């Protein structure tokens, strides 16, 4: 009898493990393949002058200034061994270029550029330096999928539901479009998820806590507003060092100062940031974002035929500003130096920001990733079930949404969907995994989920495979008056590129498949691959017997 019981339990454990392994394998294979074929790029190792060619900028992988600015810094570090941009690189990174001590410098935090250096170097060896760089971000997106899956399981989700949740994050949200280009969002999210994962492991060790603090510090190096986004994790970490107890009519407060020493991990990357600031623009405590930005880089946009003859063929601006006359010219071009970063967050923008993020046709969750509303719904259930770490997850989501709703530019410039909410999408995907676990037998919910998922995947795949260059609605009228043609600002703009102009910026498509497939056929293939996998997993989840989905809730 005992043996039979043991055998039965063992069999159950084996099945559980098998399901977990198979779903993990599916997640790894599908996300790896889809990311690989979706990475935007062109063949070649462009030099700084070639980078300014429209082939690489507007029509190519560096379509927007955030990618260009970060790549320019990377290129400058690797090829020019300098934190100051040469004139061609400044032109390339424009308009996100600042002037400090007579040099052009990057407006962005240096983290993304530095982290992407290995990808650039390896890519360069194969003649695809840009693709190698972008692949670094794709690698972080891939790791995010695995982390979301692992965290979901640790919070009580069924491995299959966790796998669906993690793939939902990657392919059914604008996170997909930003996994195949050079933005900071996936690295920021990776650092957040990794910290959460480490904190979820049992028995915190000294070394692990140092790593957590190090990762949190590193996130600031990637994107400055992360300092607020990581606050719930940091507070939770500190809270772990303290304990209250009542003993012999006394309230005892235990604090572990040894663990407090782990905070030094936080200051290592912060120290690196200060050093970067010092060497980049001469002031360790001044963030790049608060530097004087160059308002009009017309002086450099036409290389070799500069609109200002004084700057023609000079090379770097350092030489140019030795002339007082030229310096006066440059002074007219700069603005915004008196602002500090916190001024960008204004509570009066909140209502508009919330509208933009949730319901606007140009960026809203409702239009771009409605499946995430199920994640929001799941928050209520998770609250009732008292899910571990609930406060931290909800804290990150709330801070993310609130902070960027106060941001002066909630649209994220020209962008595809609400890119600033990618950390929230990561957290909401965990809640989706939990929702699917709780309601795995609810056919209606699974059908609703599949429908919303299909729509979201279709929308976000077109964004990833074509372009992130969608203007905000508020810019459209002025844009139309300049271009004298109708300008679309919703996902329709991406479908126009795909269907009417046969454009996909995928490196694999442009290099290997263009002669065999149209862009729309390529798109349909990718969507089918994703949907077939995810719908199949959803059906599998629905068909699973009751005893295989016991959770830790």
């Amino acid at each position, binding site marked *: 009898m005992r043996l039979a019981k043991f055998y039965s339990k063992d069999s159950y454990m084996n099945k559980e493990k098998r399901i977990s392994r198979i779903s993990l394998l599916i997640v790894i294979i599908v996300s790896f393949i889809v990311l690989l074929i979706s990475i935007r790029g062109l063949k070649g190792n462009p030099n700084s002058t070639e980078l300014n060619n429209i082939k690489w900028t507007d029509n190519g992988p560096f379509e927007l200034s955030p990618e260009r600015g970060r790549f320019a810094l990377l290129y400058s570090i690797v090829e020019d061994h300098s934190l100051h941009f040469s004139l061609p690189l400044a032109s390339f990174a424009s308009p996100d270029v600042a002037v400090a001590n007579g040099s052009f410098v990057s407006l962005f935090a240096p983290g993304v550029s530095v982290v992407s250096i290995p990808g650039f170097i390896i890519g360069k060896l194969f003649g695809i330096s840009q693709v190698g760089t972008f692949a670094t971000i794709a690698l972080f997106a891939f790791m995010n999928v695995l982390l979301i899956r692992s965290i979901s399981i640790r919070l009580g989700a069924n491995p299959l539901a966790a796998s669906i949740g993690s793939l939902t994050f990657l392919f059914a949200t604008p996170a997909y479009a930003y996994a195949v280009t050079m933005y900071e969002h996936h690295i920021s999210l990776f650092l957040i998820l990794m910290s959460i994962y480490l904190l979820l492991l049992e028995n915190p060790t000294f070394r692990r806590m140092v790593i957590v603090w190090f990762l949190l510090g590193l996130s600031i190096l990637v994107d400055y507003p992360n300092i607020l986004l990581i606050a719930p994790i940091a*507070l939770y970490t500190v809270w772990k060092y303290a304990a209250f107890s009542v003993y012999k009519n006394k309230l005892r407060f235990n604090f572990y100062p040894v663990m407090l020493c782990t905070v030094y991990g936080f200051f290592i990357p912060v120290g690196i940031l200060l050093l970067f600031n010092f060497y980049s623009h001469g002031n360790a405590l001044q963030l790049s974002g608060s530097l004087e930005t160059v308002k009009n880089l017309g002086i450099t946009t036409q290389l070799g035929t500069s609109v200002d003859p004084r700057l023609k063929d000079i090379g770097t601006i350092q030489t140019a500003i030795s002339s007082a006359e030229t310096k006066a010219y440059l002074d007219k071009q700069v603005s915004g130096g008196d602002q500090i970063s916190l001024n960008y967050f*204004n509570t009066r923008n909140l209502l508009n920001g919330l509208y933009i993020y949730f319901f606007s046709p140009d960026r809203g969750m409702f239009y771009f990733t409605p499946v995430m509303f199920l994640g929001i719904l799941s928050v209520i259930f998770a*609250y009732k079930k008292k899910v571990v770490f609930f406060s931290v997850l909800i804290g990150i989501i709330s801070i993310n949404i609130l902070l960027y709703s106060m941001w002066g530019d909630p649209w994220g410039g020209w962008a595809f969907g609400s890119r600033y909410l990618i950390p929230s999408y990561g957290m909401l995907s965990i809640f989706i995994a939990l929702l699917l676990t709780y309601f795995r037998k609810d056919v209606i919910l699974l059908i609703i989920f599949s429908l919303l998922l299909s729509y979201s995947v279709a929308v976000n795949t077109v964004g990833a495979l074509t372009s992130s260059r969608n203007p905000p609605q508020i810019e459209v009228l002025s844009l139309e008056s300049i271009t004298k043609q109708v300008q679309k600002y919703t996902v329709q703009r991406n479908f126009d590129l795909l269907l009417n102009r046969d454009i996909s910026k995928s490196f694999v498509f442009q290099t290997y498949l263009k002669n065999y497939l149209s862009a729309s056929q390529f798109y349909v293939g990718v969507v089918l691959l994703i949907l077939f996998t995810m719908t199949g997993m959803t059906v599998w989840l629905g068909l699973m017997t009751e005893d295989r989905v016991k959770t830790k809730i």
Partner: protein
Amino acid sequence: MKFTISLNQLSRISNFLVKNEVGITAGILSLFSIISFIVFYNNGLGLSYNDARSHLDIARRVVEGLKPGIAQLGSVWLPLNHVLMIPTIWNDFMWHSGLSGAVVSMISYVITGIIIYYFLKEFNVSIVGRLTGVLVYALNTNILYLQSTAMTELLLLATMTAGVYELAKWYKSHDFLRLIRASFWIMLSTLVRYDGWFLLFVVFCLLFIEFMRMDKKNLSTIAGKSLFFVTLGGFGVFAWLLWNLLIFKDPLYFIFGPYSAYAQQELLLSAGNLPTKGNFLLSFQYYFDAMVYNANAFIVILGFIGAVIFLLDKRIKSNSKMILVALFSPLLFNVLALYFGHSVLYIAGISGNTWFNVRYGLMMIPSFAILVGYLVHSLKPIQPILIGLVMLVTFFMLFNGDVVTLDDARIGASQKNVTQVSGWLRENTSNKPGFILVSAASHDAVIFSSGLPMAKFIHEGTGKYWDQATAHPSRWARWIVIRSGDNTDYLDKRINNNPEFINDYQLIGRYPFADIYQLKSKYISGLETQPIYPNQI
């Protein structure tokens, strides 16, 4: 590292805090109040609202001028705010610094904060929830600004919140002493702004329903109790009607008189500037935006969630939940006032690029503060996160100086930069004998900003002086301040065809909001320069 504290010690500290909770809360609120007044005053923002200057002038005219007396309270605004300024307004510093009016607002600010604390305590909200509620209210930048100036909003908030608090206590205890107190505070609110009249009506309806529930079909008891409430609660309304009858010979003068809001709204309507009239959705949108700009969107969202949780809370008796209606009465009142065209509100972005009366959105802040405090108390597992988020948003509101009421005052339709015209008057008339003829209803800001004594001006409230001076200006007025050709200037209406005005005066200067005329020198010999009607009634 270990810290220990005996539970007895902890209990002693706790008892001390509980025992002195009013004092401690009042102390902290007073500190916020004083700091905020100093900050706004030092930045020259204390009297940005044109209306603030008018309120101060109204109170000042009661104690100083050509015809001082209680009748100077007039009919344009309800009187309580001005009455409370009278003890201090005689002092020139208190008048011109605006402190006389600000003190009323500051005290009201502290009182409202304490009431919010007690309101939450009444519903067994923990100390954390109570303090959060108080801080949501107390650190709101728009509240902080309006408590630093001589406007009526904070006094209204204090009286209304006190009335609703006493009502909430009555709902729990059915103690008639509470009802008397509620009716007293509501009566005071009816003497501050017409929002109070609507609250009186709402509370009356709520009580009527509750009396019916309590006394079933005993109509005489229901009627008796209702009358009991209205007798004191409606006394302010009755007194105001009587005042209008006695002073202006028409009990509805405040509604239909030439200086009434109704008259202003009619002008706006004829110019097509009352977009909300007859459009309920637009009225709601305007007021909703006003609330959001005053309280900030996050607090408004939390407030509404708090209201839902309050409604669903099984621990609260269903009759006590009716208090929510009273808490939301400012929302209802303002939407209805906009819908019926009795009120005007401009929100930049919806109605062009200007603000007007956006401060009306402030009226819901105490209600939201109470509901947010309640929410924080109810959602214990995420209490630290909620408090952190509220503090984050509050920090940015304070750090970036997001004060929409200040924009309303400075760049909106409420603003009136009269520096030039008042500066000319100050420099050129203070050392010369003679009166200045001006319509206070149109140019109170000029009177205030000139820094001249009230007795230097002949205005609508000066009785015989006004009658005489508008009939024979060259005998009484050495200077005339008027917006020529503007039919909203009450003086212009009276003298624009007067031959004396046309022939005997020369235009000294045209300024953004008024022109100055000076009596030609050859007529000065016949000018009255001293008061001759000392005992006007």
